[in-house]
C-alpha cells in the first residue's frame, strides 16, 4: 500500500491544427496510505483523465506524480504496481474467470523467470509459483464469492458477476494502489447500492489505497474518506464528504453535492438583506458586516420551511409539483426567485396540493453565500 502525491499535474491535448485543450489543470492532491479517495464531477471535468494519468495510461503533460515517494511520471503502467478496474470491466473474453484473475500474476511471473530460467532447470520453482497463483486465485474468488464461476467465460456472467471478477483481477495482484473508473455505472440501481457497500467493506478489509472516479455524487459521498470535487479540469474542493456538503468551498460544489441540489439564487446583499428580483429577505445582523455586494444565496432543500402565503420574511410561491418519496416529499416551487425545491417530511407535506399558494422561508443560520459567478467562492 502506498501514498499517491500529485503536484501541479496537468494534461494538455494538442489537436492536429495545433489547437490545444487543457483537460486537467494544476491538480494538487495528496492521497494517504489506505485512504479511499473519490474524484467526482460532471462528465468532462477531467476526473477520468486524472485517474488515467495516475495509472500510466495517459502521459502527464505537466507536474509530477509520486507513488510511495518515487517519481513515476515516465514509468510505464505495468511497472507502477497499480490495478485498474474499468467501467466496462475489460475482462478478457477468451479467458475463463480463473484465467482472468490469474492473468496479471502470470505475466508478472513470466517477466521474472522468463525463458532462460525455464530452460535452465528452474522447473520446480515454476511449479511452486503455479501453485501459489492457483492458491491466490482460490483465495480471491472465495473472498468475492466467485468460487462457483471460476470455469465460466465472461459472456456467461451477469453484470454484477463481471464486476466482481474485475475487482478480483485487481486484488489478486495485491497492488500498491487500486484505481476504479466508474466501476458501478453499468449496474442497475439496486445492484449498484449493494456493490457500493461491498466495496466499502472490501476497502476496510484490505486497508488499500483507492482512487475512485464517479460522476454520481451520492456514490461518491457514501464511499469517500476524502472527496475531491472537480470541474473544468480543476479541483474545486478536497475535503471529507461531510465537509463538502456542509461547507461547500464554492458555488459549483454547493450545486453539485447533495440531492436534490441546493437552491442558489443570484442577487445582491446590502446591510444584511438579500435582494433578488425585487424580493428582499433579511438574513440577520451577522451578515451586515459583509457590506454591499453582488453575491449568490444558497440553502439546501431540507432547510426550506413552507409557511402561509404572505407571511413576513417569506418569498411568495406556488407549488408546481409534489413528488412523494414515502418518508419525505420533494416540492418544486415557482417563485419570483425562480424555481426552488423544498424537501419536507411526508407528514408535513401530506395536505399540500399542486397549484396551492405558499410562502418560502428558511433558517438563515444554514444559508450559504457565494461570490457571483459560476465557481464563485464561499463568503
Amino acid at each position: 500500500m502506498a501514498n499517491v502525491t500529485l503536484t501541479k499535474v496537468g494534461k494538455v491535448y494538442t489537436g492536429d491544427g495545433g489547437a490545444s485543450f487543457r483537460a486537467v489543470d494544476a491538480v494538487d492532491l495528496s492521497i494517504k496510505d489506505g485512504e479511499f479517495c473519490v474524484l467526482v464531477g460532471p462528465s468532462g471535468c477531467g476526473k477520468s483523465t486524472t485517474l488515467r494519468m495516475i495509472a500510466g495510461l495517459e502521459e502527464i503533460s505537466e507536474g509530477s506524480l509520486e507513488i510511495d515517494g518515487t517519481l513515476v511520471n515516465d514509468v510505464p503502467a505495468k511497472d507502477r504496481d497499480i490495478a485498474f478496474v474499468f467501467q466496462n470491466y475489460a475482462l478478457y473474453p477468451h479467458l475463463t474467470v480463473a484465467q482472468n484473475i490469474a492473468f496479471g500474476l502470470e505475466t508478472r511471473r513470466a517477466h521474472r523467470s522468463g525463458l532462460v530460467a525455464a530452460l535452465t532447470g528452474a522447473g520446480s520453482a515454476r511449479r511452486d509459483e503455479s501453485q501459489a497463483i492457483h492458491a491466490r486465485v482460490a483465495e480471491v474468488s472465495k473472498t468475492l464469492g466467485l468460487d462457483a464461476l471460476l470455469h465460466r467465460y465472461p459472456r456467461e456472467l451477469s453484470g454484477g458477476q463481471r464486476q466482481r471478477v474485475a475487482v478480483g483481477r485487481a486484488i489478486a495482484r495485491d497492488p500498491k494502489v487500486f484505481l476504479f473508473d466508474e466501476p458501478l455505472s453499468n449496474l442497475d440501481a439496486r445492484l449498484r447500492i449493494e456493490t457500493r457497500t461491498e466495496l466499502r467493506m472490501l476497502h476496510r478489509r484490505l486497508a488499500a489505497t483507492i482512487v475512485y472516479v464517479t460522476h454520481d455524487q451520492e456514490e461518491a459521498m457514501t464511499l469517500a474518506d476524502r472527496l475531491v470535487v472537480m470541474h473544468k479540469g480543476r479541483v474545486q474542493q478536497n475535503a471529507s464528504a461531510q465537509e463538502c456538503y456542509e461547507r461547500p468551498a464554492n458555488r459549483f460544489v454547493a450545486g453539485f453535492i447533495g440531492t436534490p441540489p441546493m437552491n442558489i439564487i443570484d442577487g445582491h446583499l446590502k446591510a444584511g438583506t438579500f435582494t433578488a428580483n425585487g424580493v428582499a429577505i433579511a438574513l440577520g445582523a451577522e451578515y451586515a458586516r459583509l457590506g454591499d455586494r453582488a453575491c449568490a444565496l444558497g440553502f439546501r432543500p431540507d432547510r426550506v420551511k413552507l409557511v402561509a402565503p404572505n407571511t413576513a420574511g417569506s418569498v411568495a410561491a406556488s407549488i408546481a409539483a409534489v413528488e412523494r418519496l414515502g418518508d419525505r416529499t420533494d416540492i418544486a416551487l415557482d417563485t419570483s426567485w425562480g424555481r426552488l425545491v423544498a424537501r419536507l417530511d411526508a407528514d408535513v407535506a401530506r395536505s399540500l396540493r399542486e397549484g396551492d399558494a405558499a410562502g418560502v422561508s428558511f433558517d438563515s443560520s444554514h444559508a450559504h453565500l457565494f461570490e457571483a459567478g459560476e465557481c464563485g467562492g464561499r463568503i
Partner: protein
Amino acid sequence: MKRTPLTNAILWFVLIMGTAAFIFPLWWMTVVSFETPQRAEAAITGSAGIALFPPNPQFANYANAVRETGSVPWMGFVDALSNSIVVTVLVVLGTVISSSAVGYAFARLRFRGRNPLFLVMLGTMMLPGQVTMIPLFLLFRQFGWIDTIMPLVVPAFFGNAFFIFMYRQFIAQIPESLVEAARVDGLGHVAIWWRIILPLCRPVTAICAVFTFIGTWNDFLGPLIYLHSDESATLAVALNGFKNQYGGLEDVHLLMALSVLTMIPCIVLFIAAQKTFVEGLARGAVKG
C-alpha cells in the same frame, strides 16, 4: 413474414436454378473423371452427350492420375502434393501473422504518419498483379530465388493489404480498455497482440486463412513463373502437365480425376471453418 405457396415455389425455383448453375461444372468434372478415355474425349469435344451418372465408372482413373502425375510414377504426385502443402501452410501462417500484426498497429498504435501510410497500403490493392509481375521476377532472380519456394512464400510474411484492412477494422472494434487492461497487467505490444488480440480475432483469422489457403492452393501463375523443375512444381502446375505432356485431350479423364483430388482439401477446409467463417462475414457486414 408469411409466404404464400406461390412465392415459396418461386423462391425454391430460383434457389434450385442458382444451385444447379454453380454445381454444374463440379458435376461435369466429377462425371468426366469417372468416364472411359473414349467417352471423356467425346464429352469434351462435344461429339456425344454426357450421362448424369457414368454408366461404367472407372475408379482406376484416380489411381492412374496419381501415378501419371509428374515424370516419376507415384513420386511425382507425392512431390507436387508436398510442395503444395509446404507453400500453402507457410503462406497461410505468414499472411495471418503479418496481416494481424500490421492490422493491430494501424488500429491501436499512435505513430506519426499512420493515416497516410494506411492509405498507401490500401492503394497497393489497386495495383494489378500483372503490373508487378516482371519487376518482381527480376528482383527475385537477383536474390537467386528462382526455382525455390521463396518468391511464393516470403511476400506473404509482409502482409496482405486486404487482410490488413479487415484485421484493422475488426481490431478497432475491440474495446480499447482491453488493451489498457493488458498494459496494466504487464504486457507489451507484442504480447498484447499475441495473447489478447489474436485470440479475439478468430472470425477474421478464419476468413483470412481460408481465403489464403484456397488462393494459394489453387494458384497457378505464381508457381508456373517461379518453379521450373518438375520436382518443385505444386499440384496446380502438375495438373497442367497432363496437357503439355501428352498434347491434345486424350487424358482429359485423368486431368479431371486429379482436379477432383486437388479440390478436396479446399472443400473440407471450407466446411470445417464454415461456422467461424460465416460468423466473421456477418460480423463484418453488421459492424464493418
